[in-house]
Structure formats: structure tokens, C-alpha cells
């Protein structure tokens, strides 16, 4: 079962940006859990794109101005939600931000 971990935090989370994951990535890759992912640059550098009536519309900034923003993501492969919760809870960002676990759509 594949899940995406969306790593969210408010502005104060930015100060953790260059801390890395304290060995989490290495451990999870070794266990075959971590399939990919990465950190995101701040939402102030985001561009939102829509196409309406064949016209490409651009907006500066993320989808929505929210207090918490996505700062990174991981794709993990786990047996079930309990394992995914355990993997997410071990991520250092769970200690200062919030991690949302989303099952991937499977046909």
C-alpha cells in the first residue's frame, strides 16, 4: 500500500529547512519503505497555473493562503495504516510540524 506523507508546518518550520531528517531517510530507504520524496522551497516562490478558455492563467503563491503550508513530501510503501503512522511519527518534522498521511489512489 502506497501513502504520501505531506509534511506541513507554519512559518516557524522554515528554520528546520536545512536540518535534514536525522537518519530517517536512510533508515526508511534501507527498510524499503521510502520510495521517493523531497523538500520544497517556500510558498512565496510558488506559481499556481490554471487553464480556462484556452488561456493560461498564473497566480503568484500557493493554492491557498493558509497558516500551515506543505514543506515536503515522501512516498512510502507500507503494509497498512498502522505502519504508515509509525513511519510518519518517526519523521523529525512530526516533532514541530504536522504530517498528513494520504493513501495513493490505486486503480
Amino acid at each position, binding site marked *: *500500500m502506497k501513502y504520501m506523507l505531506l509534511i506541513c508546518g507554519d512559518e516557524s518550520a522554515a528554520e528546520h529547512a536545512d536540518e535534514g531528517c536525522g537518519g530517517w531517510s536512510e533508515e526508511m530507504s534501507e527498510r524499503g519503505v521510502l520510495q521517493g520524496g523531497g523538500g520544497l522551497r517556500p510558498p512565496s516562490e510558488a506559481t499556481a497555473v490554471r487553464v480556462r478558455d484556452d488561456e493560461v492563467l498564473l497566480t503568484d503563491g500557493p493554492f491557498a493562503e493558509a497558516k500551515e503550508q506543505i514543506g515536503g513530501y515522501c512516498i512510502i510503501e507500507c*503494509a*497498512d*495504516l*498502522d505502519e504508515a503512522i509509525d513511519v510518519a511519527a518517526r519523521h523529525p518534522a512530526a516533532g514541530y510540524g504536522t504530517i498528513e*498521511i494520504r*493513501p495513493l489512489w490505486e486503480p
Partner: protein
Amino acid sequence: MSAPVDARTAVAEAFRDEWGQVVATLIRVTGDWDLAEECAQDALTLALQRWESEGVPRRPGAWLTTVARNRAVDRMRRAAVGEAKLREVAAMAVEPPSGEPPDDTIPDDVLRLMFTCCHPALAPEARVALTLRALAGLTTAEIARAFLVSEQTMAKRLTRAKQKIRHAVIPFRVPGPALLPGRLRSVLSVLYLLFNEGYSASSGDELVRRNLTAEAVRLTRVLTRLMPDEPEAAGLLALMLLHDARTPARTGPSGALIPLEEQDRSLWDRPRIEEGVSLLDRAMARRSPGPYQVQAAIAACHATAPTPADTDWPQIAALYARLSRLTPSPVVELNRAVAVAMARGPAAALPLLDALDSTGALAGHHLLPATRADLLRRLSRPAEAATAYRQALALVPTAPERRYLAHRLAALPPPLSVSPPTPPLRHRPAPASKHQSP
């Protein structure tokens, strides 16, 4: 086969006793909650026809599970489910050839179902609804009535929860040792909420509410049988029994709630009290106290006092202090203050109320001024008591409480006169999460 005369009773009993087991077994094998519920329902419908003419089978649970399993195979075949899965379901062990009951597997399925329904990744109201639907077999309409929401809202809640279990892959199992304590707390709190909803709700259909408390007691009994080494599970069952034992004395002819100290104690259910007390004693002997055992101990102090005057208030005050350390809450503190007033006099409790007041935790709630008013009345300080009663009256949410407070205010002596003998303080040994419940 026994006589067919009581086929209807047998089906009703089987429904109550076996529903959760049939559904749990089918969920384990098919992984499909809706299919499991529909097939369990079909099996009961068939039982109603067959048992009347053919007699009640020796083991109704196994009969129902077999029929439900066959129904599941039919439905899955029609839905063109893969051969491998079909063979697995068809081979599902319901009754071993020897005829010995497979007792080691079936209760495990019920336990798995309890933990899955109460998984903390589900919203609390969804956990309660799922437990009532999957384990107790209440219909969506019945659950909706019990929680005063529309049937459509409740159906949506159940569907969403089942979809999450399926798509986010919430496992169908009893969690391992590392997760067990936290997950068991979630199961216990769902059962407790179920009980409270039936016991303390100030509105709703009386029958539906009795059904909720009965189901909460029954499911907690099942849990304590399956997890006999968990003292908090036994503590919760004891707490429920000790509260439930007072039910016959809790309401007057007009349906009005009767406070604990005015209840006719001869109406209390003695066997229930004895069972609760002995359960609690055995749980406490394990020396692993928790909030349910402490609350049950408080309920036991009340339940075993022959008259209100015999109540062991110093013991109750000590138990509230302990509960306050285990699960700090302003309502527990308030009850502790009342117990202290009963044990050592109203003057000893006033500083506790002041401390509680200064935290602001009960601001806007009538219980704090109402309790202060009662203490001041007992201290023969009628002017201050009247002020506090008026504050409480401005905040009180329910009509019976309002009537009670208005009655007390009117009965206060005019200031500076000699006060008549006053009735005792009102204590609310209510389940800690609720605010009024004699």
C-alpha cells in the same frame, strides 16, 4: 433441535449475542464491511423462516455464520470476484468437522472488530457509530435517533468511515504490545461514551437510550471476557454496573431526575451492585489503578451506603484527589470540592472553589456558582448564597436544573434571620465527562 415455539425469541437472542461475531468473521475473511453486514442480515432473515419450521439449531451462532458465509460466496460470485478469494471464503472455517466450537478464533474476530471500529485514525463520532452498527447490529436509523442527527447524516458518517478503513488500510487486528495501551484506551472511551449517551442524555427516545446503556454494558462484558488481564476494562464494567444499578430510582413518576441523596435506595439493583463491587475488587487487586477503577470506586462508595448519611465522604474526597491526578479536569475538581464539603464542612471547600474560579476553566458554566451557592447556604450566608444562585440561574442550560436552583433560591431565609435546618449539599457523582446526572 429444540421446540420451534420459541423460534422468534431464539432469533432475537441470536441477533443480540451473535451479530458482532458473524459480522466480525465475515469482515476478516472478505474484507468487505457492507457485504458482511448485509449477509449477516440475510442470515437472520432466513433464520426467522427456518427456525420456526425446522427448530432452533443447537449452535445458533455457527448456523448464522455458515449461512452468512454461503450468502457472501453467492454475492461475490455474482460480483465476479477472483476465484482465489472465492475459494478462501468458501473454505472459511465456521464449524470444524468434529463439531467442536472454534472458540479460539471467533472471539478474536470480535476483539479485532472492536479495535478496528475504535481506531484513533477515525473521528470519535464515527468510532461510536461503527461500534453500534458493526458490533451491536443497530440500524443506521436507530443510531441516528440515539445521536439526534438525521438518518442521512448518520449513513454518510458510516459510509465515510468504512471507506477510510478500506482505502487507507486500517488493519483488522488487535494491536501489538507497543500500541495496545493507547488503543485500548480508545476502545474503553468509546464504550464509556456509549454508556453515558444512554445514561445521561437529557433528551431523546427513552427506549433507544436504554438500548445504548444495555449495549455498552454487553460489549464491555465481552471485552472483559476477551481481555481478562486488563484492570481498566474491568474497572469500566464495574463503573457502568454501579451507575446502571441506580436507574430504577433515578426518575420520578413525571420523568424528572431525582438527585442521588433523595433516591429510594431500596429500588437499587442489589445484584448489579454486588457484581460491580466484586469486579472492582478483583481489578484493584492487580495494583494497576486507572481512571475507570477510581471512578468505579467512587460509585461503589455511594452504592454501598445504606443511607446518604452513611456515605464515606472522606474516602470519596480522597478518590477524587486521586482521579484529579490521573485525569486533571475542572469537573473532577468541582466534585472533589463537593466531597470535601461533605467530609470536612462547607468552609473547607470554599478555597477549592476559589482556586477553580481563578483558573477560569468553568467560566460561563452554571455548576461553579451553583455549588458555591449550596456551600454558602449551608454556611448560613443567605445574601451571598442568593447572589451565587442568581449567577447560576443565568447560566443553567436545562429546565430541571433551573427549577432546582429557583426552588433553592426561593427557599433561602431573608438575610439576618435565623436559618431553618437546611437540606444537605447536592453531590453529582456523575460520569466525569458529563455535567449533570444524579
